[in-house]
């Protein structure tokens, strides 16, 4: 494991623990009142790296804020993240999450949708508490950022669902990156860095430079995630392997394969993608995966992920120029490499 990966692991352990403890308090308080909140605790208690929460805390600390200033925003983000996961699993018909059956598989779709709502509402509470910690003006700015983050994420998910519904097969890499920017980057990397900077610097000027860094970092993260879905370790990945193919997700490697197939292969691939999940066979999935390897689609995606990670490393220097050295700064700097190394 590289030094960067070790540093990221340690910081995730420390800040993730802080966020997890704060999050547990919200969940426990809520669970006393109603059983829906007990179910809402399911995904958060399954573990996870708490990357987003840790990033948010580090991004505030790097500018001099204490952990306590950022922890409520970090907890809110984790709650929204879990809300997105519950809903995404329903919409994608995913079967597993973090190594266990998805919530809708265990409790049915209506209950899962309601739990998603409950997590969303719980996510608002820490933002309300921000008011007494950060003061009304800053808390208001964080709320605005959160509103935008949720909006962008929902629009990104809508785009992806639309593509699958229409069985869109003429998409470009730019289309994929645009969707990823909205669906993944905003809540995974852009929001934590912007909100962290907002809290740490106590003003919202020039937040767009964190969009660039967050976008390249988040896009590399998503492509690596897509690669792990096809060729990762099931126990570590925590979801069914090749689930993206069963779900018909438009990944970078799938778009590459569509472009680089013969007309006959493309026609068969289009037919496969248009089928409902239940009608797709494991043999078909295996064949698509073999074609991806043969056509260099996986290698292509890997190269793009590396290039975007390099761009993220470059943008880090621009976004955090002049910020004094610290563990938090080194943690953020290490993230572009870590997203490629994580298993």
């Amino acid at each position, binding site marked *: 494991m590289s030094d960067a990966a070790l540093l990221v692991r340690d910081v995730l352990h420390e800040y993730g623990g802080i966020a997890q403890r704060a999050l547990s308090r919200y969940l426990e308080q809520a669970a006393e009142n109603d059983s829906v909140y007990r179910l809402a605790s399911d995904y958060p208690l399954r573990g996870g790296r708490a990357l987003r929460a840790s990033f948010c805390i580090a991004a505030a600390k790097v500018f001099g804020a204490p952990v306590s200033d950022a922890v409520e925003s970090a907890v809110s983000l984790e709650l*929204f993240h879990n*809300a997105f996961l519950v809903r995404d699993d329903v919409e994608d018909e995913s079967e597993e999450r973090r190594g266990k059956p998805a919530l809708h598989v265990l409790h049915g779709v209506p209950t899962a949708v309601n739990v*998603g*709502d409950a997590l*969303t*509402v719980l*996510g*608002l509470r820490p*933002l*309300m508490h921000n*008011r007494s910690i950060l*003061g*009304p*003006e800053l808390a*208001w700015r964080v*709320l*605005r950022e*959160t*509103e935008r983050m*949720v*909006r962008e*994420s*929902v629009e990104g998910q809508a785009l992806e669902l639309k593509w699958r519904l229409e069985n869109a097969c003429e998409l470009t*890499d*730019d289309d994929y*990156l*645009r969707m990823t*920017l909205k669906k993944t980057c905003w809540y995974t990397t852009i929001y934590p860095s912007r909100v962290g900077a907002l809290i740490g610097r106590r003003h919202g000027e020039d937040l*767009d430079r964190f*969009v*660039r860094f967050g*976008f*390249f970092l988040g*896009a590399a993260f998503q492509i690596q995630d897509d690669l792990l879905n096809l060729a990762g370790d099931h126990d570590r990945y925590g979801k069914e392997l090749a689930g993206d193919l069963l779900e018909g997700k438009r990944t970078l490697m799938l778009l590459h394969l569509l*472009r*680089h*197939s*013969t007309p006959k292969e493309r026609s068969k691939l289009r037919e496969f993608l248009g089928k409902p999940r239940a009608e797709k066979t494991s043999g078909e999935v295996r064949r698509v995966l073999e074609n991806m390897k043969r*056509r*260099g689609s996986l*290698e*292509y995606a890997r*190269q*793009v992920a*590396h*290039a*975007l990670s*390099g*761009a993220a490393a*470059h*943008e880090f220097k*621009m976004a955090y120029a002049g910020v004094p050295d610290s563990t938090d700064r080194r943690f953020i700097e290490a993230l572009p490499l870590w997203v490629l190394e994580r298993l």
Partner: protein
Amino acid sequence: MASKQRIKRPTLKRTAPDRRFSGAFRPPEPGASSPEAPNAKGEPKSDKKAGVPYEAVNGAYRLVDEYLRQGQKMAEELWLPQSNGGVPDVGKVVERFLRSAGDMGTAWFEMMNQWAAGPPEHAAPNGGTGPFAAGRRATHAAGANGATAAGALSTALSVSVESSRKFRITVDLFGAHAGTDVELVALKAADGSAALIDDIVAERDPTEGRITLSVRVPKGQPAAVYNGILVEKRTQRPRGTVSLVLE
């Protein structure tokens, strides 16, 4: 005599160094075929040697540049009232927020009210036009004949009105916040023509700290505008006004 054409410098494409990451890659040679172009047999070409990082990162930069331009324009449109010094509508923001994330109407109401009735020690930006100046925002509740209506004013205060007449109630807070124990002694007709409405009970929920003011309008109370002052019990200082319009 034709005047000589003055020689001018051509307009430069950029006036500062391009420090983008993509500058680290050599662009494809002029005339080089696109990696997507099929070969002579109609077979797609492999793009192993076709500058994948250059294409991908350049595309990503174009995309994020365009996004930032659009984002800025959109932000200007969305937040125009505030940038002009007007009052941003907290309710609208949170309503949009929840439309995105789900349909949980009560949460935005609670949240909006918490901001609207916040403590006064934090001044709003731009001379008090922000969303934080307590008392700036009024909450209206209207009830039909014989109805009881509750207007939740903050997470700390709600008002319930029982009236045989159609009514509207408006509350302005200035300085009340969660934990402020307030009372409303009476509502008085603005023109002094009618009897006081003084059947008002204040109840405090000890677990949540919420205060509920229950106003019962006597039968036969004439139509008029009735006003009263919310007074903080501890300091006896005014913390808001209540205006009840009986129709």
